[in-house]
């Protein structure tokens, strides 16, 4: 339940962001990435050392 509440919150924020910034493209991209994140569970979360992709 808690996760679903936060997922709803994230999607709401994303829609709001997309509307304010006219960046509708971000919605399918984030949804695909979230789904991929759910599927790929074994990837080590290591961040690159430079700024741009952090």
């Amino acid at each position, binding site marked *: 339940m*808690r*996760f679903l509440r*936060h997922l709803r*919150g*994230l999607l709401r*924020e*994303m829609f709001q*962001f997309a509307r304010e*910034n006219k*960046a509708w493209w*971000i919605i399918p*991209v*984030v949804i695909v*990435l*979230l789904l*991929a*994140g759910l599927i*790929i569970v074994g*990837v*080590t*979360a*290591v*961040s*690159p*050392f*430079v*700024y*741009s*992709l*952090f």
Partner: protein
Amino acid sequence: MASAPLRILGISAHYHDAAAALIEDGRVVAAVQEERFTRRKHDPRFPIDAIRWCLSHADGPLDAVAYYEKPLRKFERILRTAFRTAPFGFRAFCAAMPLWIREKLWIRMQIEDALADLGHDVRDRIFFADHHQSHAASAFYPSPHREAAILTVDGVGEWATTTIAHGRGRDITPLRQISFPHSLGLLYSAFTYYCGFRVNSGEYKLMGLAPYGAPRYVQAIRDHLIDLQPDGSFRLNMDYFGYLRGETMTNRRFETLFGGPPRRPEAPITARECDLARSVQQVIETALLALAREAHRLTHAPALCLAGGVALNCVANGRLLREGPFADIWIRPAAGDAGGALGAALAVHHLHFQRERSTDPAATSMRHAFLGPEFTDAECADALRAAGLRYTTLAPEALAATVARRLAEGAVVGVHAGRAEFGPRALGHRSILADPRRRDMQRTLNLKIKKRESFRPFAPAVLAEHAADYFAIDRPSPFMLITAPVAEKRRLAESSGEPPCDDNPFASLVTVRSEIPAVTHVDHSARIQTVDRESNPRFHRILSAFADLTGCPVLVNTSFNVRGEPPVLTPRDAIECFLATEMDALALGAHFVEKRDVPPALLSLAARRTFQPD
């Protein structure tokens, strides 16, 4: 009727220097970086220990939580950058995504859960400030100025890399913005990387290296890398940088321009690195001066407040003060991302809740940076006993006199007292002190105590009332964020007119340049901390006792840590650092320990400790 005081927790995390800060009614109650607890330098992880400690100082429930940036906006920038550079940068993109998908996009949930575990329900009371708004707030609100121009310069936040704003009363009005990928912070980081130092950590080494070199590459940088306009606006030529693809800071074309591949970490430093450091430093200073002039033209404000990682460049700050258009500049002690935690909380307090600032900011401004944890004398004694160390307990005056006597004898003394500093500088509460008059002290401290490169300069702490007698500075510098030249009358003839040497850039290290050689850099500059009795009484006592003994009101002051580690926090951290280095004595709370009294078995055990490169 007066409104009820607001209690706001600020958080910065997930990039570098995670931190938490607590404000009550606009007053800073507590602030600390996560690295101090976890002992991992620049720890970016969610600062749960820092939050827990800050909340232990809260008198009641939280009214709000402020996060220092807007994750979705940052994520948009990352996605746009990835699309722009695709298919290059795919590896770095894949490396970054798991963290975003699992943690960074869920920061609201992470904050709610963490605080619920600590007994605070903050649902629907979490706010997100802009990254540069957090910086601007952290610079302006704690300053003594009712009106000021605000300049924030860093690597990158969401999109902004440089902003000019106008602060008046409780309002901050944005005026100008330069956006990613054009960034002075990233330009400096590119040279940091190219010179073989770690990005986000080695920038201050590059700054320290600059005076050993000549500005040979300034023209090349101006011609090829950055188009700098008189109004301070600039664009980088991305043909020379690799960071858009997220793998390296510079690329092959950059290497061709500067005559070879990047220096490997730990390889010897040559004249080329020194010249590159000097050149990029000069370009950054020119850019900052132009930005400051533009900020003055736009605002006509009497003072400048400065924040963002580039504001930690104290050499540039010194030039801004001496050559810039402002009568005064004010820089926060934690000007980097750690300070963003405090800035976010202050931004929410003044901008969202619309609470007014003090009617007399000069009286209520932030005068010290001692906002972190402290330990009682009893806790210090417990730690000393647990470590098997013999100690003497002394009254404050006697302790200061003992420390001063040992310093005058040439000893290196660690001092751990009072609340820890917030920000990267040790200001006397977690410090290693030494006599600056000794010609071999810089080398001794670098190699035997700090376990780092011999070229690294050390900073002086000076009694505020004697600062102008030793340095060309006419105002307080309590946070060690401004460099100024050593006063002419304190310089020695031996040091005049030495040009940088191509064969050995550090040959001039042995030259005695002034009466206080250990804190006089090759160009006679010094990164000064002025110490006044009111805001830093413990350290003032030690400096005064040293001045009484020797006639010199100056000490070397460097952070109490070794290479690759954050400054010590607890008494136990201090004891471990004391045992693992060649420090001669330790003042821990009210207790004093001599290294010569330490059992040899303990020392040999501690000597096995290894140190990470930083």
